[in-house]
């Protein structure tokens, strides 16, 4: 009983934190005007206005008039961006370095694991309000990934930071298949994979198994035409998951930092024709930026934004990749860097020369495109979800405060000052 009460109060607390207004609020029209609006896909509108209705952006432009009955929000002198999207997060999965729920360490290949089954909807100790804190700094959507303890970690989810339960938060699931190169903990137990070539083999074998599974399914379908009593093959959750990768229905997201691991990820991508291959971290990706650009491999940069070359000179990873024509996302890897510091991650790259608009794209439209949700989020356009952030000024300036955050047209954060 006590446990049930505890659960109920946590859920109630969660909905208070993440859902401060009643559902009918979403239907209300809000008219925000006077701000500099970075639409991301349609340029910057000086002294522009946005009309929010039914949770969507109804109208956006320089010369809008306020409809009767709409709530007016004067944002003169402020800056509006789309809600920020963190392309790589472990939010709600427990503290990094502690007991986390994102690595099912019983087997190096666990594509059947679903990250939404591990997420706590407000965050966990020692950062119990991490979702609320993320929203308070303008993060409205995250891509939550399994960890990198396994070679194939499982299926990722796109979550909006509002809703109260994980199921309410899901914008898209499954979003991608998370894999990870580099040495794993299995070596210490004398289990496969002990080496880096063992890691590559785990992926290769999983793809071959999925192909076999596909063949048996095809065979059954064919047999069924002539034999109504044909017995279907036994369901295999692992192969079912990898089948989505094989059929190019799921993008593949691979953790790799060292150049050898990056090259292995790209090699596997070529070999199995991975759909929308993206690399997480890519600390040494600058060494083969041209190759990645040519192959259309996306790099999700972070949490390390600045790396150093062999002569200890500073390398602005995001800028070098963008200059070479590589599409980038920027991430926190929360809580390696806390979720709310996403805009400062981007600011670090801007500080050393990345174009601010490119940096903004890397935390808005680029991640939206990566997981195929650009029809709903990632930019400020009529028809898209009304997820937006009102900043007091330059979003990348350390001193700039977040004034207001909307998700699905509902005000989810308001600065008291």
């Amino acid at each position: 009983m006590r446990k049930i009460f505890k659960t109920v109060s946590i859920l109630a607390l969660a909905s208070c934190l993440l859902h401060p207004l009643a559902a009918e609020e979403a239907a209300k029209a809000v008219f925000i005007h006077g701000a500099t609006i970075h639409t991301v896909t349609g340029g910057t509108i000086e002294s522009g206005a946005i009309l929010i209705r039914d949770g969507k952006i109804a109208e956006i432009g320089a010369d809008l008039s306020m409809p009767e009955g709409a709530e007016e929000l004067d944002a003169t002198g402020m800056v509006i961006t789309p809600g920020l999207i963190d392309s790589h997060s472990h939010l709600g999965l427990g503290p990094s370095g502690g007991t986390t729920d994102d690595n099912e360490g019983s087997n190096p290949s666990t594509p059947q694991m679903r990250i939404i089954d591990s997420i706590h909807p407000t965050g966990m100790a020692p950062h119990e309000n991490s979702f609320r804190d993320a929203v308070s700094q303008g993060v409205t959507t995250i891509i939550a990934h399994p960890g990198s303890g396994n070679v194939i970690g499982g299926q990722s989810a796109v979550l909006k930071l509002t809703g109260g339960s994980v199921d309410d938060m899901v914008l898209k699931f499954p979003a991608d298949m998370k894999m990870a190169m580099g040495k794993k903990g299995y070596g210490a137990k004398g289990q496969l994979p002990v080496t880096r070539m063992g890691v590559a083999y785990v992926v290769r074998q999983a793809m071959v198994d999925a192909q076999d599974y596909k063949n048996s399914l095809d065979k059954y379908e064919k047999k069924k035409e002539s034999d109504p009593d044909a017995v279907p093959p036994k369901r295999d959750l692992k192969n079912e998951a990898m089948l989505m990768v094989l059929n190019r229905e799921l993008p593949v997201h691979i953790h790799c930092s060292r150049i050898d691991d990056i090259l292995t990820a790209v090699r596997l991508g070529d070999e199995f024709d991975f759909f929308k291959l993206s690399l997480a971290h890519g600390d040494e990706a600058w060494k083969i930026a041209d190759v990645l650009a040519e192959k259309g491999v996306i790099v999700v940069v972070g949490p390390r934004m600045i790396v150093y070359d062999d002569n200890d000179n500073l390398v602005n990873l995001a800028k070098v990749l963008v200059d070479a024509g590589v599409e980038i996302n920027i991430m926190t890897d929360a809580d390696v860097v806390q979720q709310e510091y996403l805009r400062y991650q981007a600011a670090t790259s801007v500080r050393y020369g990345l174009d601010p608009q490119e940096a903004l794209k890397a935390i808005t439209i680029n991640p939206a495109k990566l997981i195929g949700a650009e029809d709903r989020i990632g930019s400020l356009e009529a028809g898209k979800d009304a997820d937006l952030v009102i900043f007091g000024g330059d979003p990348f300036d350390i001193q700039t405060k977040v004034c207001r955050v909307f998700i699905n047209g509902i005000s989810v954060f308001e600065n008291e000052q």
Partner: protein
Amino acid sequence: MKKLNNSKKVFIFCSILLSLFLTQAWIFAGDSGTVVITNGYIVTVSGQDIDGGSILIEDGIIREVGRDVQVPEGAEVIDASGKWVLPGLLQSSTDIGTGEGYTDRNSDETSSPNTAEMQITDALNPFDKDIKKATISGITSAMISPGRRNVIGGQAAVIKMRGKTAEAMAIKSPMGVKFSLGEGPKDTYGAKKQLPTTRMGEAYVVRKALVEAGEYLAKQKAYEKKKAAGEEAEAPGRNLSKEPLAALLEGKSTAFFECYRVDDIMTAMRLTDEFKLKTVLIGCAEGYKLADEIASRNIPVIVGAFGIGPRRMETQHLSLENAGILAKAGVKVAIKSDEVYGVGSLSELPLTAALAVKGGLDKVTAVRAITLTPAEIFGVADRIGSIEPGKDADIAIFSGEPLHYMSVVERVLIDGKTVFESREE
């Protein structure tokens, strides 16, 4: 291998010399001994800012600062028009230079919870890559100390980011004793079921060590007294562990307590009162809850956890407002940055100070918190921390206002010599 004739040998020798000269030229620029930084916006920290000011440097020492500095003949001139000129930044309480990478650190001798006898300079590698990386953000000096795993970690030091030996790098070594209360020692020894497995166990480790150091000190004093009186006396042997702790009891050295939670901060102050220690608090995530207690004891605080990286249980209630609240209560505040990634990382000390400003600390105090204030805390303000005649010529030239995120460090001098210069794009 073919034998080379003499002319070829000479040619190769000359080529090597030339290439050495070309690659190393920037390091030796300024070796003439006289350098003048002209026409910059000088933040002296100790006094008023000087717009359009110049700094005359001779033999690594600042000789003149002001608007009417004459450029001596043959001096190297560094034009700082439109730039902000600051004293080199001082990173407080870090283990920079004591390990390669993030896993192989040498700053925690975890064989015993009390290792007061350890000296951090014995773990210092002057060629560690992090030392050059630190200079890129304007850091010219650092207080390096043992980590937070041992209750009594050992002896700290203040070093410069320049020099081929620990001795050449040291400004002051040893400098104080590093203590740690809270999760660090408890987790380390608790896992082994050894003392201390609790917070009261940690306090006991400190108390016992200081009581024993007091007895050691009394023996030494008694011997000296007898000797001075001409009496026959047997000299007590040196005890390397008790010696640095005895210096704390005599008020000759400083106790640096790393602690985060309110209870640990209070324990540090309780021990301070009990043994009349000269104390500095490090980390102090919940310091804002005890600002008056800290202020009333005149204990300086090195604010260090800004919550950018993963939180521990003991840092979950940290706040960006910490530094601001402490400063307003009258506490002397220094700021450190030693997180692995992002704006809190070692190489972004000015941005960490900028975060404190976001939390309510005024800008002037924030700049002081990464220059002169820590220099005063470590007792090295006679040499570093501000731009004044007579001080070491450790200088960082910024492209703009130093705490703004778009300002970057363009040039760094240590002892009047350029150690970093940003490349033109």
